[in-house]
């Protein structure tokens, strides 16, 4: 899932201040925490209250799109709702915001979120962590299902650095050393021999910027 956090309400209010009729578009896709209809409605309520203090009144329309990053879906769902709308506040990740900007080039599209990374949530703790860096050359088959590109602070491909201490990364005592995790995992699977295989340096071109379907 794409991990986003809410922008400060002041900042969002600043974006929409010059406009009156604002569409707030949620996204039911992969944003986590969820930014669907409930979040869109909550944001409209918060902004209305904040606007009142600044003597500014908005006319909010609230909607949601199954996947804002799908230009076909975004167009078919949002176009019929655009009459009279002077700006759009998107609750999607940066990809959704850009898709809307392409679909509605004449309208200002503002992000209500900051987009962080592709990650997963430890649900009990409510913590979201990066899991995939989109490198274009998936190594998970040989690293026990733990990605060193995304989860090692240094993105090392051939084992822990000297900064690994008691299973934690030298950059932050909260952060697990990815290579320690990989070692423990491979040990459980009796596959420690995989660590002895040397690996060529990463080909950064594989990450790419475009693929075709």
């Amino acid at each position, binding site marked *: 899932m794409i991990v986003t956090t809410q922008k400060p*309400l002041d900042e969002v209010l600043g974006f929409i201040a010059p406009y009156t009729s604002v569409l707030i578009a949620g996204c039911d896709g992969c944003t986590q925490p*969820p930014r669907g209809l409930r979040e869109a409605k909550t944001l409209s309520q918060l902004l209305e*209250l904040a606007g009142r*203090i600044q003597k500014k009144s908005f006319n909010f329309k609230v909607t949601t799109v*199954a996947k804002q990053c799908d230009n076909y879906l975004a167009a078919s769902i949002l176009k019929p709702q655009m009459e009279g709308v002077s700006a759009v506040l998107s609750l999607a990740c940066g990809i959704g915001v850009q898709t809307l900007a392409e679909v509605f080039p004449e309208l200002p599209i503002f992000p209500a979120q900051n987009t962080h990374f592709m990650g997963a949530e430890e649900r009990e703790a409510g913590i979201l962590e990066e899991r995939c860096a989109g490198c274009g050359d998936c190594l998970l088959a040989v690293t026990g299902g733990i990605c060193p590109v995304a989860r090692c602070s240094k993105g090392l491909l051939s084992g822990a650095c000297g900064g690994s201490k008691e299973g934690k990364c030298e950059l932050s005592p909260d952060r697990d050393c990815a290579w320690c995790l990989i070692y423990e995992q491979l040990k459980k699977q009796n596959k420690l021999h995989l660590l002895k295989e040397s690996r060529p340096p990463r080909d950064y071109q594989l990450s790419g910027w475009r693929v075709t379907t």
Partner: protein
Amino acid sequence: MSEDKTQQAVAVKQNIDYCSSCAVCSTLCPYEALKKDAETGKITLDVTKCQVCGLCYANCPARVIDTLYYDLDSLLNYLEQAKKEYASDTLTIMCRGSAPDIDGVSKLFGTPKFIPLLVPCVGRIPDEVYLKALLMGINKINVLACDVDYCRFERGSAVTGRKIIALNLLLDQLGYRRDTITLKRNSLKVKVDANLCIACGNCVFFCPYNAAELKSPGGITFDLDACRGCGLCVAMCPATALELENWEQERISQLISRFSSEMKSPKILTFRCQWASFPPLNGEPAPNIRFIDLPCASRVDRFHILEAFQKGVDGVMVAACSEDDCKQERASGKAQHSVATLSDRLEQIGFKERLHFCSVSPRYPEELDRELEQFSQKIKGLGKGG
């Protein structure tokens, strides 16, 4: 805190002098608050464990137990007044946990007009209330209890079932109809709007009872036998696809509109877990205070808190049970978390101080009043909201 509480008024008392140690109360008490002391044979009451279900009060043969809520006098007073007000000879005694709105209850029993008596658990109604109601000219008594397995007080519904069988047998001998008292059971459950569901699975994570299941393909289904109607999933659903029977979004919104227009300033709206504090049978709350009772504080919805502010309410309070007292599976902790999350966002627009979460218990009846008093004072100091 605990020293504090020993000085407080408590809702249940035991007049030990009259106690014959028959142990009816300790057998019935679902919480081991009443216990027979192994050495002395005396019954002891540990108020800190009491959840104020009233089973002991209703069933003690010697009237040893006193309760501040819905005692015999206040129940009979209420009946006398309500009989005039509602002009009906049918009494319907309803548990808060299972009663839908008045129309729903009418349909369940097929009685368009009735005298409503809404209590937390029908198990707390003493036999005398049934008999005196008949003496007052009431001809028919309907009782709506929760399904036995969903009784928030564990034994209240089952005990009432047995009580009603016994009372009907007695009434039959006295020449009354054998079905003078009718018992129905009901439970309020979650409903899914498949058109709105986005199959995100949030409800699967939040449901404390594993009632929600998400299949791919297949979408969301709820096992209604497992659902206990806390409403946590409803408040957490990102797609607003879920509703809880009797506590629909729209119904709560209408209450907010009505209350905010009739309240005096500073307007304090309290979302109250219906097990955390019991309203009196008679009397209105203070003119600046209104309550919306919820099946559990975890049903409290961000929408409704914000909507209250939008509609001119000056302060919103959420009164929950403590986690230890929660009649659901620690759902009050989830409620606290969700209020705290909203509070962080309210801080950004200067409304944080206007939202207050507290946990209270009916065993200390002054607790909620004190919270309300302090919060009202604070809101008065802040002046008008939005």
